């Protein structure tokens, strides 16, 4: 009975947040690059999209999660967060890794240049996003130790998420080598949808704010 109502949320999520962007990346006309470079780019972009997908794996998703066990959903939410936040933290380092295998600027010098360029907004916004993301990770990991009321924690988590997604999307659109107009619009749509439903949950259904007991 319950199984009958179960919706294939995972399949839909993977399609929207991974397959569609990946297929686009493979089909669109981007400059040819080595397998390693493409792997790093796709990993980073995939991690970003999965971060957007975190909205999908929460209670704000009333549509496709219907009939599924919430604890299993939130488990996936946590696993994705704990795996892909570190990847995004590492991505400035990953970008310079190919320089170990090809001629050019020394990888450590490249990293130094990346981390000390403050002239363009994209990098600064990216650094802000990075800090917000680390806060999201830490406050989640040490939620128990923080001893915050669940409601406070959840609002904090929600606000951090919104700020993170805005800055990260800004950064990705501004600096991402693959974020052309199509991918940018897709990113904005997914980010906006997530933020919209989160805000809707907070503002329209204040009675739900308490969430779980």
């Amino acid at each position, binding site marked *: 009975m319950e199984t009958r109502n179960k919706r294939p949320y995972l399949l839909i999520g993977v399609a929207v947040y991974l397959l569609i962007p990946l297929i686009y990346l493979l089909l669109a006309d*981007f*400059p040819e690059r080595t397998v390693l*470079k493409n792997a790093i780019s796709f990993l980073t972009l995939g991690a970003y999209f999965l971060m957007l997908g975190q909205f999908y794996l929460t209670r704000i998703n009333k549509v496709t999660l219907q009939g599924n066990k919430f604890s299993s959903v939130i488990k996936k939410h946590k696993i994705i967060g704990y795996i892909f936040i570190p990847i995004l933290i590492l991505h400035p380092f990953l*970008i*310079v890794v*190919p*320089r170990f295998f090809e*001629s*050019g*600027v020394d990888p450590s*010098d*490249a*990293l130094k*240049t*990346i981390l000390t*360029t403050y*002239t*363009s*907004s*994209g*990098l600064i916004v990216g650094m802000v996003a990075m800090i917000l993301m680390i806060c999201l990770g830490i406050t989640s990991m040490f939620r128990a130790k923080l001893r915050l009321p669940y409601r406070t924690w959840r609002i904090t988590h929600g606000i951090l998420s919104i700020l993170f997604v805005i800055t990260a999307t800004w950064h990705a659109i501004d*600096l*991402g*080598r*693959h974020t052309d107009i199509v991918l940018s619009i897709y990113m904005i749509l997914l980010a906006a949808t997530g933020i919209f439903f989160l805000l809707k949950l907070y503002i329209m259904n204040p009675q739900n704010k308490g969430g779980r007991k």
Partner: protein
Amino acid sequence: MAIKSIDGCIGCGECVKSCPTDVIRLDPKTKKAVITYPEDCQICHLCRMNCPVDAITIDPTKSIPVVVSWG
């Protein structure tokens, strides 16, 4: 055609400085590298090698007619 594209520029200006023939300039507004004088590109790849985020793609063809000694 010479430097073909710059994707993912962070605006550090390394390519501008390392280009012997002054092909690339930073856009004063966006602060990003722009292929400004491609006809002067000597296809030496110094910009690409100096870019910390490997943003530059180069094509071996020149964007203006090429004069050589015999054809």
